[in-house]
């Protein structure tokens, strides 16, 4: 396996002489970030507008999507450069793209979309002019997604070729803000390997779409139920072949997850550093039990960093990300929870305060994170399902469900 430098060469302080000149893109990115420096607005709506503006400008400057091919509107950077890119962004505390889910649908479109779909969707997606939500889960189909029952029936009439969609999605993150949903719908009979499922792009403003926000553990409404009542969706919004959507959803999810770690890595590094400072400041770091926990958290963040590079390296060589990606997914899920468990231990007596309490340390962020991190072992595939995947797909153990592997 080729090794990837942990830090791009020009980051290491030169002992003497001039540092090698950074590549052109990096100079421009630094200039861009310097020009766009600023504090995020307090107000939620203003903050969203601010992040959208940032990403529109970024796209305008040709500095969005470091890993995407140039034809798709990306920068086509090499792995080491992608790492450097994310490092620059994290260091500058650049606002995150307001819609992380966009980067699950985008690779799918790049790989499986029609030229028209790529032309239509990718640019507004990068610019955050259009936000996306993911319509996979249903009340009866969570871990077992292939059991989904939202139906799409193809009709051709005077209005043209389209699908009529009827059914319900649930736990749909950002559904109330999204312009589009990438959805898995049933177009054929259920069968092994996710048969009869299609991948469809549904406009959220279409007639017959009802969004009902759901409050989550923190009291905020971050996800929603979405109801479809005979919603007309143009057949041109089908991605890939009809009834072949399951395989499309799976392959793109796998590859996307591998690259998603890139940007997470530096963010996690920063949060762990903030936790370490908190422990030092409160004096909790003097406690041997706390030190054990801190060291374990530090080990996890290093596992994540090192593994994601290994996985990416393989992806870039055109092979499967291999076990490292599956391992990282699970480590990451549990890491987010453990991190906040340790943070509340560090807070000690102050951990009783709520996340809305003004006088709480760091304005309650750790308590908020503690509650929200409950989702990290549920949302993106539960920890149990991830273990099944490791056991069955990586280790080759027989499936207890008697399922044929897909």
């Amino acid at each position, binding site marked *: 396996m080729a090794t990837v430098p942990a830090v791009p060469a020009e980051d290491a302080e030169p002992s003497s002489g001039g540092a090698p000149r950074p590549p052109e893109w990096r100079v421009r990115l630094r200039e861009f970030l310097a020009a766009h420096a600023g504090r995020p607005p307090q107000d939620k709506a203003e903050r969203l507008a601010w992040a959208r503006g940032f990403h529109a400008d970024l796209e305008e400057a040709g500095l969005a999507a470091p890993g995407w091919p140039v034809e798709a509107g990306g920068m086509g950077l090499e792995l080491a450069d992608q790492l450097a890119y994310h490092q620059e962004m994290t260091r500058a505390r650049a606002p995150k793209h307001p819609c992380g889910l966009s980067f699950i649908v985008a690779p799918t479109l790049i790989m499986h979309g029609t030229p028209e779909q790529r032309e239509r969707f990718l640019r507004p997606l990068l610019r955050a002019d259009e936000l996306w939500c993911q319509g996979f889960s249903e009340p009866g189909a969570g871990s077992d997604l292939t059991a989904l029952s939202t139906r799409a029936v193809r009709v051709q009439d005077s209005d043209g070729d389209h699908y009529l969609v009827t059914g319900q999605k649930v736990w749909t993150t950002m559904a109330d803000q999204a312009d589009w949903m990438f959805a898995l719908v049933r177009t054929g009979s259920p069968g092994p390997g996710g048969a009869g499922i299609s991948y469809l792009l549904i406009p959220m403003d279409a007639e017959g779409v009802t969004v009902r926000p759901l409050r989550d553990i923190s009291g905020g409404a971050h996800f929603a139920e979405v109801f479809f009542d005979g919603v007309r969706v143009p057949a041109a919004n089908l991605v890939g072949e009809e009834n072949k959507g399951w395989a499309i959803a799976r392959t793109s999810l796998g590859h996307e997850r591998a690259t998603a770690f890139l940007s997470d890595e530096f963010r996690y590094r920063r949060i762990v550093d903030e936790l370490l400072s908190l422990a030092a400041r409160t004096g909790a770091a003097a406690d041997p039990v706390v030190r054990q926990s801190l060291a374990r958290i530090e080990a996890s963040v290093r596992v994540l960093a090192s593994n994601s590079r290994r996985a990416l390296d393989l992806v870039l060589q055109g092979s499967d990300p291999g076990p490292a990606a599956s391992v990282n997914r699970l480590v990451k899920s549990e890491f987010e929870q453990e991190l906040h468990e340790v943070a509340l231990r560090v807070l000690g007596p102050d951990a009783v305060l*709520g996340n809305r309490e003004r*006088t709480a340390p760091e304005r309650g962020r750790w308590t908020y994170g503690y*509650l929200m991190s409950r989702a990290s072992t549920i949302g993106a595939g539960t920890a149990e399902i991830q273990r099944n995947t490791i056991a069955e797909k990586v280790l080759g153990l027989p499936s207890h469900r008697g*399922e044929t592997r897909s």
Partner: protein
Amino acid sequence: MTTTVGIEKDLREALGRLLAERCDHEHVAALADGPQEWDRDLWAELAAMGLPGLVVPPEHGGEGMGFALAAAAQEELGRRLAPVPAMSTTAVQAALLASGDSAEAARWLPRLTSGEVTAAVAAGRTVDGWAMADDVRATRAPGGWRLSGRVPVVADAAAAGLLLVAAGADGDPALFLVDATVKGVRIDRLDALDPTRPLAGVRMDGVPAGRLAGHEEFTEVFQAAERAALVLLAADAVGVAAQAMDMAVEYAGTRRQFGRAIGSFQAISHRCADMLVAVESSRALVAAAAASLDDPSEDTAVAVDLAAAHALETAVRVTGGCVQVHGGMGFTWEHPAHRYLRRAKAAESLVALPDRLRDRAAAALVARLDHDNEDN
């Protein structure tokens, strides 16, 4: 023995019935998310059953049933997330009883026992347990003491008519009783991780105070309060965990994925089995610790600390597991799972942290060993 067992069974059943009716999930959710801090009416009904007087001897108007029964009752309250200040009130009763101050006892115990007044402990809070409130000053005044200063976080303060304040007096630690309804006491509500156990900041501005314990009795009296609080908090945690386990098991048996009940997957069934082992172990330790408070020995402190550490940690693990077993449903505001997690997690750092309690227990065990060796 049979009578105690019978009494406990009757008490649990009566409480269970009352709480099922008066303290269901919708009720708790409405209270916790609303402006009201605690359930006054429920407290009155519990008082009618004699609950606030369980550990108080009959000469002070109580039932004299001891901590064994109080812990059983608290477990039932925990099961339903009852927003009542039983733990704090009992802790202050324990201090009053331990102090041997008959005047103060005569003044407060009957009102605490009848449910007319509830109490809260205003102390400094550390990872190792209650301490003196740093920012409170006690000064002598004609006819008694006056307290000034603030205690940043006090559980159940908003409900309290009586405050037990740990503060320095002439450079020595002391415990004071403050009538929380007098002028000069200000109580400011705080946002709490667990709204079923409301928190507030307490400010006192030259308020009259009665000294319950001077520096000679301070440790013993304060310890009595802390041990009572730990045992009841642990008993509460057993109830919280037991109910969360029941919810998880119920869901595991009914929710279907992949054509079968999720409880048939061993990742889920083993998790549930581990919950039961942890809950039953906690219950056993808490019962022993409560019995040890009723019949103190040199082992009491260790019994209390071990029980509290185990039960508090178990509740966090089980309530977290309950969320996990419910998948997306467990992450919603509507589902009660998060309220159980909140109560469990907040309890863990309310009095003393589990790992510190274990540390203290281990230190005591080893010290005892050294002591025994010296004796031989």
